[in-house]
């Protein structure tokens, strides 16, 4: 992405301090003294059952819901001291229902916040095209269409582009891919992760789907009622050592398989390719995970698999014993990140 058109490309650290929301007339607060730090440039997933206060917590960051007490600091600046609308314009916002304005073209939808920020017409035009290309939609084809002329997946791409319009350092995403079918969701997730590798935004991502949290999160905060943080750590650390039964129940069955799914083959030590097993072993491409190795072994009924690169060159072997030690090793090497 060219940097010419960006207003503010740095990312920011978000700190929540004793953040509380007490609705009038309710016995218990919806969010009760939440304190957490969201490191700059990371995706932090808030995951928990519906009604646990994860969305409320997120909406207090851009003050769509005003906290009863506590503070939100973005790069050290207290959000309560900012004008709410200007504060919200500096934070990208993506919701499950997408919320594209049906009476505006795609270009007008994306250009709305830049227009409110008084950008020049030509700068908005360039930015809209740049963003459409970024999310994989041809500007010439799509800029003058109306939202109803797009599929759900395309609409959510535009939703992401719109949230990125003024290049906000922080993005809030409330179950952004929740309303799409599994195949589209998977594709949107992958595209978004690829985008994030370049953009390095600070992202708060809310979902109730633990598998999505594992996939998207640099860190995961597992929440219980009143937004109580039960465990806040990297996905691999949570899988390796769930803090309690509640977290374990959230992980569900197949926890070890999920752990293998998070370990890329590049982290494994490859054995030399055994000369005698010519052609009989299954192969796995080296950008996949250990889980894919296991799958290949199960499918072929062998105890090892050959790792090849994209070009098809054999790079070495992974054995069943390697997978077992990887799961065992992960337990001891994954240091819990400070919660």
């Amino acid at each position, binding site marked *: 992405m*060219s940097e010419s058109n960006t207003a503010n490309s740095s990312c920011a650290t978000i700190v929540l301090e004793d953040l509380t929301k007490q609705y009038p007339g309710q016995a218990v607060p919806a969010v009760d003294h939440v304190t957490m730090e969201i490191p700059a440039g990371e995706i932090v997933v808030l995951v928990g059952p519906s009604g646990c206060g994860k969305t409320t917590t997120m909406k207090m960051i851009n003050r769509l819901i005003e906290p009863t007490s506590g503070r939100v600091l973005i790069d050290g600046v207290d959000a309560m001291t900012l004008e709410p609308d200007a504060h919200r314009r500096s934070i990208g*916002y993506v919701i499950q*229902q997408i919320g594209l304005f*049906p009476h*505006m073209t795609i270009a007008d939808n994306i250009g709305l916040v830049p227009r409110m920020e008084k950008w020049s017409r030509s700068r908005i035009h360039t930015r809209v095209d740049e963003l459409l290309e970024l999310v994989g939609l041809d500007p010439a084809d799509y800029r003058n269409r*109306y939202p109803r002329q797009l*599929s759900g997946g*395309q609409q959510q791409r535009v939703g992401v582009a719109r949230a990125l319009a003024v290049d906000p350092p922080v993005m809030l995403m409330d179950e952004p891919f929740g309303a799409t079918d599994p195949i589209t969701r998977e*594709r949107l997730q992958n595209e978004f992760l690829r985008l994030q590798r370049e953009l390095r935004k600070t992202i708060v991502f809310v979902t109730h789907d633990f598998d999505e949290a594992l996939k998207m999160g640099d860190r995961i905060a597992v929440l219980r009622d009143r937004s109580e943080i039960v465990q806040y750590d990297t996905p691999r650390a949570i899988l390796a050592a769930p803090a309690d039964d509640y977290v374990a129940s959230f992980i569900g069955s197949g926890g070890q398989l999920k752990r293998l799914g998070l370990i890329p083959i590049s982290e494994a030590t490859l054995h030399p390719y055994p000369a005698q097993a010519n052609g009989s072993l299954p192969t796995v491409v080296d950008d996949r995970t250990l889980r894919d190795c296991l799958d290949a072994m199960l499918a072929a009924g062998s105890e090892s698999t050959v790792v090849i690169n994209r070009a098809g060159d054999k790079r070495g072997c992974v054995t069943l014993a390697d997978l077992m030690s990887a799961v065992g090793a992960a337990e001891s090497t994954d240091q819990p990140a400070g919660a």
Partner: protein
Amino acid sequence: MTALPQAPGQIAAATPVRRRSRLTPGLAIRPLFLAAVILVVWLWVHYAQQDSIEQRNLTHSAIEHRLAQHIKVSLTATVLTIAFAVPLGIAVTRRRARPIRPFALLLGNLGQAIPSIGLITLIALWWQPGFWAAVIGLVAYSTLPVLRNTMVGIQQVDPALIEAARGMGLSRVAVLTRVELPLAVPVILAGIRTALVLTVATATLVTFISAGGLGDGLVAGINLNRPMLSFTYGVIAAVLALFADWLGGVIERLLRPQGV
């Protein structure tokens, strides 16, 4: 620049979308039909035997005068209704106005529930007969559809859109002017169209408080037992109401936001 893989869905969606034309030839049917009705009545009146009363009331200038009065009182009332009921409808949909919402609707219901002839007479008796009493009566009578449709039009806007707009940093005023009102336009216009037709039809009654209009000729025909008079003015009033309805329909089509 990152080019992300194109989704297969894009191929299907890339086929050109047919633009619905706003003004279709079918729209011409109504005015042509109304013109034909007027022509038939004109020919009938022109070749019929007329006594002096009928002649006096059926001259072009007599008809034009009453038609102009009728249009003037109807248009004034409709413009005032819009100026009163649309802002009121917007106001009562604001979050803070939630408690007074039922009262606003009650007011509108009352205006429409009281028989229009009684309402107009009451206002004339209480204040003074004439043009402005007629206008006030008509405004009270046609407020409800505009008020109700403005409220419904704004309330039916998908809450997710408002949430997205607020989350993007649009102020409450910007949410209203850029999202809520444009999306409510079709429903509000439908209400205005209803009000316009109601007003044009009801304005035949303002003759009773000496505010003129097509009702003059209609009532004169009844009082003086001249059916040709009543019939002619009645047809003109009906044609005017149907024409107003057609005009409202055309405006609705022209002002409907694209993409919806």
